[in-house]
């Protein structure tokens, strides 16, 4: 180690807690010359005379008319890579138009600032969103050639009124989709349809825009572009930006009780590390999963440092006004502040540039998010990036198998635009926008035409399917859920709408008495009004969380694929799930102990979704066939597989459900179901089907490595189990999964 930075923290990276440490050497930039054909005025305003190779590759692909997806690291200059072709086009022909899509207003704002600072010739950039006053809107449509908006606005505010947008659509040269990996799951499935509708209408007005996507590094960029835009895109993923030397540490809090899986508090460990780093003058950001955690880390850190250092620490959270946020960002950038504890909900919108150290407390759910957080560390010099593990199964798995986190790239952004629950609304909206006929298969997809024939409110005419309803169909649904049957979560004091919850999830997440977590803030549900479909909540700062107990049944509706995999019959298809939430438990945040069980009286719900199910063979259950071992085995296998699925398909374990039964009424055999928690399904379980062998083997390794004997929160217990984690047999699950792995490797 030769750099001063390494010496500064080397002695902290020591002890039992350190599960893994490695230093990734610095890499030099790989530079390519500026394109010969770049507009001379753009050449003048660029502060350098070369591009990173991936930026040049993006230019070349765009210049030859290809669609493109960039999937390179944080701070690798992705914005410049997609801006250059757009700005060049506009420099040559100011009538050319570009649409930029951002998932949040804050990100659109950041890009507007960056574009303003580039001072590119002929550019007239404007933000067009829900806040844009009516009279500005027509001006922007006429005048702006670079319009920054969001998918929701495109869906209800642009496409249904396309006649007003005729000039934009006719001249639409580029569609830029930044932060594309955010468009996954339900939201992504909707955005996939919105982009298809946009491409179709552009075609109606005679344009064929190129799509430029930018994404975090994921396993499937080409697939994501195809799923989102319905296009073949050139993948540019060889990151040529320079990287400073970075030390990566995986930190596992001390195991206090192996049987309970109880570990020292990650918040305490984070504050200890943060105190040591900031005392040494190292600028550090710490990401925690909730506001409460971020505030506790701040408080504990202040307690550990001298008062001068303590004054240079601050929490950073969603409730701040933009001005307060900018102030904290400025103080951090200028070095007045040394340490900031933030909720990880803010990782996308935080503008702090370069720091020395980044600490993530708890795996943030996706490798892409973790890399985004770690990307804050060491961009100026040698940086330190730390993950402090929670008790969660996936966190603990990474602590024992660092290569699974640091080397493999299996995490895929998954969506399914053809989910009928999502698609139908867009088919209606498309028919409203212009008659849908066979020629639209190229943009809207075959499934859209199939659905069009089945929807009663569409009329088949000579020019295609047209909307026969009275209202305007895009106005009926939003992009954030699969159903208009949603409950609104309202904060009682301010009346603020916090979010929407689909009915099938409302009963288990916002029942009366539930603790509801939103953007890192906790709320107590005061009332769930089934008629008004409203959950009234108030801020909550107590120390228990809630877990719903529910009865679940599954019925196979249609088997779409069955294959012999891992020595058993594995199926993928559509099932219906019937659930009834019957009670909930209050559990202590400190030690997970049950404080109280409260009965609930709620109606049954049912929905159709996608699932995989598998039927272990008799031999694979040899020695496990007695009850309750059999059920405990299947149930534990189901939980642990659900815990690891987010490693393969970017999703939250809360998006996935499961059911295990010693005998299912349709298969007549012991059966494990793992299903998509969103009605209709968004492709998550199909990814599991396709990656079944790897998924099973990861799960077996996870169980093998967990130090408990009988199962703990770090392996087979689930924070969302409808049976409250009763009947779990870790040993049985491990035996079963090992037999599956053995069958998969011996299979011919």
């Amino acid at each position, binding site marked *: 180690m030769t750099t001063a930075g390494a010496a500064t923290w080397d002695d902290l990276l020591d002890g039992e807690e350190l599960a893994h440490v490695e230093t990734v050497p610095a890499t030099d930039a790989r530079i390519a010359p500026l394109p010969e054909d770049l507009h001379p005025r753009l050449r003048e305003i660029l502060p350098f005379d070369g591009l990173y190779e991936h930026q040049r590759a993006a230019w070349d692909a765009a210049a030859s008319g290809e669609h493109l997806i960039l999937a390179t690291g944080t701070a690798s200059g992705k914005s410049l890579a997609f801006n250059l072709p757009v700005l060049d086009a506009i420099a040559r022909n100011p009538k050319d138009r570009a649409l930029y899509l951002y998932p949040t207003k804050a990100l659109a704002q950041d890009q507007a*600032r960056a574009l*303003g600072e580039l001072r590119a010739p002929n550019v007239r950039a*404007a*933000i067009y969103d829900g806040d844009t006053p009516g009279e500005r809107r027509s001006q922007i449509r006429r005048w702006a050639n670079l319009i920054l908006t969001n998918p929701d606005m495109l869906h209800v505010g642009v496409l249904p009124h396309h006649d007003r947008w005729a000039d934009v659509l006719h001249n639409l040269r580029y569609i830029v989709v930044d932060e594309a990996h955010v468009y996954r799951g339900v939201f992504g499935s909707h955005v996939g349809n919105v982009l298809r509708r946009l491409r179709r209408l552009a075609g109606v007005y005679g344009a064929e825009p190129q799509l430029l996507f930018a994404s975090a590094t994921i396993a499937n960029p080409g697939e994501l572009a195809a799923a989102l835009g319905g296009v073949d895109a050139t993948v540019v993923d060889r990151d040529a930006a320079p990287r400073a030397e970075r030390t990566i540490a995986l930190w596992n809090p001390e195991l206090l009780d192996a049987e309970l899986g109880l570990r020292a508090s990650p918040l305490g460990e984070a504050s200890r590390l943060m105190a040591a780093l900031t005392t040494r003058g190292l600028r550090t950001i710490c990401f925690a999963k909730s506001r409460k955690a971020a505030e506790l880390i701040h408080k504990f850190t202040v307690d550990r440092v001298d008062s001068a250092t303590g004054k240079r620490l601050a929490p950073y959270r969603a409730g701040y006004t933009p001005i307060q946020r900018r*102030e904290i960002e400025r103080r951090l950038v200028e070095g007045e502040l040394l340490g900031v504890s933030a909720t990880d909900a803010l990782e996308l919108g935080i503008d702090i540039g370069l720091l020395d150290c980044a600490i993530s407390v708890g795996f943030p759910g996706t490798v892409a998010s973790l890399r985004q957080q770690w990307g804050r560390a060491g961009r100026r010099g040698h940086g330190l990036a730390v993950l402090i593990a929670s008790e969660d199964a996936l966190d603990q798995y990474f602590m024992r198998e660092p290569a699974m986190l640091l080397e493999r790239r299996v995490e895929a952004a998954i969506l399914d635009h053809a989910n009928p629950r999502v698609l139908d609304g867009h088919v209606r909206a498309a028919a409203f926008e212009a008659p849908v006929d066979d020629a639209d298969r190229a943009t809207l997809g075959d499934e859209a035409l199939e659905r069009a024939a089945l929807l009663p409110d569409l009329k088949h005419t000579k020019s295609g399917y047209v909307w026969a309803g009275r209202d305007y169909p895009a106005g009926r649904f939003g992009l954030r859920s699969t159903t208009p049957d949603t409950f609104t979560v309202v904060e009682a004091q301010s009346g603020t709408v916090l979010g929407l919850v689909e009915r099938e999830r409302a009963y288990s997440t916002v029942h009366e008495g539930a603790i509801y977590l939103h953007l890192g803030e906790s709320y107590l549900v005061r009332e769930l009004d089934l008629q008004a479909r409203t959950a009234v909540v108030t801020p909550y700062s107590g120390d228990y969380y809630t877990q719903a107990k529910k009865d679940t049944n599954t019925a196979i509706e249609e088997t779409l694929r069955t294959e012999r995999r891992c020595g058993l019959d594995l199926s993928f298809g559509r099932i219906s799930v019937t659930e009834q939430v019957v009670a909930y438990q209050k559990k202590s945040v400190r030690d997970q102990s049950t404080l109280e069980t409260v009965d609930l009286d709620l109606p049954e719900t049912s929905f159709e979704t996608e699932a995989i199910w598998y039927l272990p063979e008799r031999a694979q259950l040899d020695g496990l066939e007695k009850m309750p071992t059999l059920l405990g085995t299947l149930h534990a296998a189901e939980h642990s597989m659900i815990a690891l699925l987010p490693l393969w398909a970017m999703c939250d374990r809360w998006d996935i459900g499961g059911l295990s039964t010693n005998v299912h009424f349709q298969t007549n055999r012991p059966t494990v179901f793992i299903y998509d928690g969103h009605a209709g399904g968004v492709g998550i379980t199909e990814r599991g089907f396709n990656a079944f062998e790897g998924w099973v083997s990861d799960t077996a390794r996870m169980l093998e490595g967990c130090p408990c004997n009988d199962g703990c929160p770090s392996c087979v217990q689930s924070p969302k189990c409808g049976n409250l984690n009763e009947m779990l047999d870790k040993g049985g699950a491990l035996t079963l999964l090992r037999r599956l792995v053995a069958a998969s490797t011996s299979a011919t």
Partner: protein
Amino acid sequence: MADVRELRLVLTVQDFDGALSFYRDALGLDVEAVWASEGGHVTLLSAGRATLELVDEAHAAEIDRLEVGRRVAGPVRVAFQVPDSGALADTLEGAGATRIAGPVTTPWNDRNVRLEAPDGTQLTLFTPVE
């Protein structure tokens, strides 16, 4: 109702980048649009609702007396209603503004601070006191 739909205040500034970092970053105004003319640049920032306040010389003198204690403002003064005028004034001082006076509480119960922005414009930050 008049046909006027928007009051837009146009400031011609010598130091464009400095003004951007002052009004956009330090004061925290969102960008609505950016564009360029031949060699020139424009950034349109949103600053809440715009109103045009007409005062006579005597009232202007009274405001100056209340906020500052002497006559300081020219014919145009730009006032921003913000959540916390005192705290924001500190931020803006850090960003190059010169504090002329304040914060003071006015008889109509606003908390006012008078500043001169780096481009020379005279600013009042005001916060209604509850």
